[in-house]
């Protein structure tokens, strides 16, 4: 009997003190894409997040949030201060890096991504030359992060290449590829276009 009481107490304590990592999916913003850029030692993070409305009959909305600071951590804090709900990064599919970032900065981006709660090591790293235009582009599904994954998969299928630029691959070879070797995604006239370095060849 003592055993059962002990188990029940442990379960009750764990449940009541909220130490189990329990979260509700609709009580936060689901981040689908995040962008990093630096201009004159001003670090900027732009991210796309989906927020559930408070009514089930209204569609979810994708919102673009951005924050600046002396570092990426400071920029992220600036975003968090704007929000009433926490950010969930589990659905993060793409990290977009401004093509102006040098190798050292990319390393700090990778470190930042690894520090995120529940980092998904399958996220793609791509570069873009104009972060603001990219995040403001109207995409097919209305969710940029989701559509970028679709574009990458389609690209792989039709061109017979494998884009090996996911976090687990990048973190293994660190920044060996460099920003110049990353696939490029840009928005032209409201359309997203993926391009590869080295004349379309990608290893």
């Amino acid at each position, binding site marked *: 009997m003592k055993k059962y009481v002990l188990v029940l107490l442990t*379960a009750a304590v*764990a*449940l009541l003190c909220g130490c*189990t*990592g*329990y*979260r*509700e*999916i*609709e009580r936060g913003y*689901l981040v*689908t894409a995040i962008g990093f850029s630096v201009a004159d030692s001003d670090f900027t993070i732009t991210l796309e997040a*989906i927020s*559930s*409305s*408070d*009514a*089930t009959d*209204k*569609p*979810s909305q994708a919102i673009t949030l951005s924050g600046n600071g002396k570092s990426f951590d400071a920029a992220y804090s600036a975003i968090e201060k704007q929000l009433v709900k926490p950010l*969930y990064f*589990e*659905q993060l*599919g793409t990290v977009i890096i401004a093509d102006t970032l040098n190798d050292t900065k990319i390393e700090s981006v990778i470190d930042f991504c690894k520090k995120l709660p*529940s980092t*998904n090591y399958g996220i793609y790293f791509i570069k873009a030359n104009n972060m603001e235009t990219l995040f403001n582009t109207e995409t097919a*599904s209305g*969710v940029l*992060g*989701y559509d970028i*994954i679709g574009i990458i998969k389609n690209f792989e299928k039709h061109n017979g290449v494998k884009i090996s630029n996911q976090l687990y691959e990048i973190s293994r070879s660190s920044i060996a590829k460099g920003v110049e070797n990353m696939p490029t995604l840009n928005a032209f006239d409201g359309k997203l276009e993926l391009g590869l370095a080295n004349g379309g060849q990608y290893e």
Partner: protein
Amino acid sequence: MSGSVNDYKNIYLSGNLDKDILLFKTIFKRDAVLRTREVLIGGTTRCCLIYMDGMVNSAQQGETVVEALVESVLPQDFLPSCEYISKNILFANEVNETDKLPDMLRAILYGDTVLIAQNSRSALTINTKGWRTRGIKEPDSERVLQGPREGFDEAAMFNLAMIRRKLLTPDLCIELMRIGRRSDTPVFICYLGSLADEKTVKELKRRLSKIDIDGILDSNYIAENIRDCRYSLLKTTGATERPDIVAARLLEGRIALVVDGTPVVLTLPYLFSENFQSDEDYYINFLLASLSRMLRWLCFFITVSVPGVFVALVTHHFELLPTHFALTVSRLRAGVPVASAIECLALIFAFEILKEAGLRMPQNLGHALSVVGGLVVGQAAVEAGIISAPILIAVAFSAIAGLMVPRLMGAVFFWRLFIVIACAMLGLYGYLIATTLFVLRVFSIKSFGVDYTVSFSRPDFLHLKDSFFRASWRSMKTRPLFNKNKIRKGDPN
């Protein structure tokens, strides 16, 4: 006084008919249905028939006892003797002489007639049982599309006859025990002498003899008293209302317990894999039966896992959800006032309430309940934002899958709750821990000394042939592992 017939074991008949009649009347002084009928044997010797009204076949009693006694012609030197009356006067097919008062009382209470005579210190118990029974009907809980349709009723003797009709062999052993201080219920232990394990039979008798209870009104009274794990949710004794199932289990070397007053016969030892067997499995094509059985295994895992895994995914592991699905769940959960885990638990309880209500209500109202409970309340609750559709779907799917394994219904309910709580606390790690505990628990259970999971002890065809699937009768050459005569036919290799 314990209320048992054995309270009277030290009292004997006096030989004085009036005093002896008074003795019975005193014992049953508050029983309005006791009848005593005095008869003169051959017009000279006084005797008395004692019986319970409504429990005897009056016509049979009149013809084979009363008429025989009244119309008998006694020899001139006749001395009242039970042996003489039994052998020369009575027409009844079963007559026993006894001088033990408990045996006489037991006979009266079981529908027999007791004959006591002047100057005789012993009595005759005459088989005149004649109470009404429900008759042979197909059991509602074990219906089949193909196969025998007969089911047990509440009279143990008829039930034994149904079993014997299927096993025409003198090897069939039927032993009687009486359990219950006040009910003194006859319990019959049936087994095939050449197949059943003597140790198991002995162990069963030992456990039965230890039962100390006022009355046995159903076989579950016994099942709970003889089970190996008192607090386990998984049953370790089988229960069936079908004579063909009992016969099949006896042929596998199992033991059956037929309890008077209930159509449910217990069989033991009972294995975990039996929970997934259906009565019909053996009457249809083995490929179809195997498919059904594998579906049952799958549904068992679905029914215990789906609500918990769903809760784990939407509360701990969003990354495992496809983006669009995550967005849909997030949108549909918006505005729901309670946490997903609480919502899931509440729905599981709601389903149990609906199920219980459906079981207890008249059949005609069942459809109305499913419409009101399933459609109206469910849809209204989703539209009102009290519950979310994804969790409702997960719990409903789990509930429907649970109906595929009715023998595990009670255990499934508790395991489902346990897994949901574990998943709410620890996500998929909780699921792994809970399922590991479940597997460990199942593998630790024994049924009368036989491992509950003995069918999985060796993962080869010979041992799995009647567990995950049902092999053809041509390849069913061995019996389960726990009986002494394993070879069913031919060479098992």
